[in-house]
């Protein structure tokens, strides 16, 4: 007896036969592969490119300020926030509220953001500026 507001959608319809397969041959287990013991892992791009997944972000490059470093507009930069920003690293920095990609130079306690394109000017960081490092760029994906 179906309960109120509840049904099991069973509705036997004897006029419409349903064919079911019948298995007459026994089922055997699979055979071992000659390469079994020599199988190595697959090459995993994620593991290769990303050391710290929780701290890794992807950003899209716009503009040509780093073109001489081989970083083109449209490229994806892989950014690791857990890495220490040191001299000569390419970094993502926050400058006046904007995210920018530049090479970091630290010399005698002075920090400078260097573009790699002769049409752009370096920016020397002073105490009055709203500046912070967002992360270190570890690699760049460029589609040909």
């Amino acid at each position, binding site marked *: 007896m179906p309960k109120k*507001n509840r049904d099991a959608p069973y509705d036997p319809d004897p006029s419409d036969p349903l064919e079911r397969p019948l298995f007459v041959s026994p089922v055997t287990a699979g055979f071992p592969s000659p390469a079994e013991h020599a199988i190595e892992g697959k090459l995993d791009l994620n593991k290769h490119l990303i050391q710290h997944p*929780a*701290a890794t972000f992807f950003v899209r490059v716009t503009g040509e*300020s780093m073109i001489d470093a081989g970083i083109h507009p449209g490229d*994806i930069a892989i950014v690791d926030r857990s890495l220490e920003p040191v001299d000569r690293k390419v970094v993502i920095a926050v400058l006046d509220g904007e995210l920018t990609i530049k090479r970091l130079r630290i010399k005698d306690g002075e920090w400078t953001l260097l573009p790699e394109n002769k049409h752009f000017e370096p920016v020397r960081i002073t105490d009055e500026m709203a500046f912070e490092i967002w992360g270190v760029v570890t690699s760049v994906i460029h589609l040909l």
Partner: protein
Amino acid sequence: MARVFALVDCNNFYVSCERVFNPKLVGKPVVVLSNNDGCVVSRSNEAKEAGIRMGVPAFEVRELFESRGVYVYSSNYALYGDMSRRVMDTLSDFTPDVEIYSIDEAFLDLSGFKRINLSEYGRRIQTAVKQRTGIPVSIGMAQTKTLAKLAAHLAKKSRKADGVLDLTASSHQDRALAHTEVEDIWGIGKNYAEMLRKKGVENARQLRDADDSLVRKTMGVSGLRTVHELRGISCYAAETAPAPQKGITVSRSFKTAVETLGDLDEAISTYVSQAAEKLRTEHVAAGVLVLFLRTNRFQESGNYANSHTVDLPVPTSDTSELIRYARAGLREIYREGFRYKKAGVMMQDLVPENRIQSDLFDRVDRSRSEKLMQTLDGLNAAMGSGTLKYASAGVTPNPIWRSVAESRSPSYTTRWDQLPEVS
């Protein structure tokens, strides 16, 4: 062994997520609105200072938003979920015992760490989370979860603590408890707080020292547990394994009332699609499907609420099969002339998908449906959720029941075509 719990609590979590990718928002009044752009669910400190209360309906404060130049965002759960995962992953570097309590809070069990300087460890955790994810957190540490939560609350407010407070020393606890209002104690809601205040219990220290039998009589066993926790007796174990899902529910309230069967069909089909996707993600299938709808709870007349339950012959996570049953069930309970305010579907009796006993008379081609679901999920994962969907879920956006999200930020960390830009 003395237990030590740390409660890590993200500061203004949704707003903080937005600030990571839009640094212009730092220092500004910012709010995030709930589903349907209904209420304020997250505020920056500047927005709090502007007088915007938590949970206030957005339409009530529109003028305040404009006059104070408040930045208003629709909730971006794809982003917040991903950022939460990153915070929790970072915490697990500091202890294997991380209990995720909510999207922005976690308990850490530090009991096994002998001889560490808790304040210093807490500071390291706070710094690591801020550096690796950009999210600022407050951390409270004590012998019980309730005290740890209390400590985190104080850590957040106190400039001296700067977000990290070790309350394990009982000499500090006295003052801390005296400075905490009853409303702010974990486990004491508005009603209990009102009742306690009438009895002269206004802060956590007074509650800690209250008489046990009185507490038990007015607040039951759970109230007694809270009081014991305030005294430093741990009553809540560390729960690091999440309880297995008992059911998956997808439901929404409609911004404007829905009246036609066609619109409800679309809504229900969409909810079923979302729930089924979740079933497949969790690798379970549902044995029971429940669908429900109701009119506005607060209207004086024209009220109607009903539900329909379907026992599925074979547990399934196949979207088209579930949509078929749901739409058939909808026709059983839909009544014309009512203005529906909420509808939803619940998937219950969940079983692992590799343990499904199929039915000899099953007509559904399950291996074909499995392949179809894999293709559907794969495409939606690669190109954005909702790229491919069933026609019954609606082809064009339907303003009648779809959630409104006027100003949602991009899915910065979950869509290739919405990455943050750097120049």
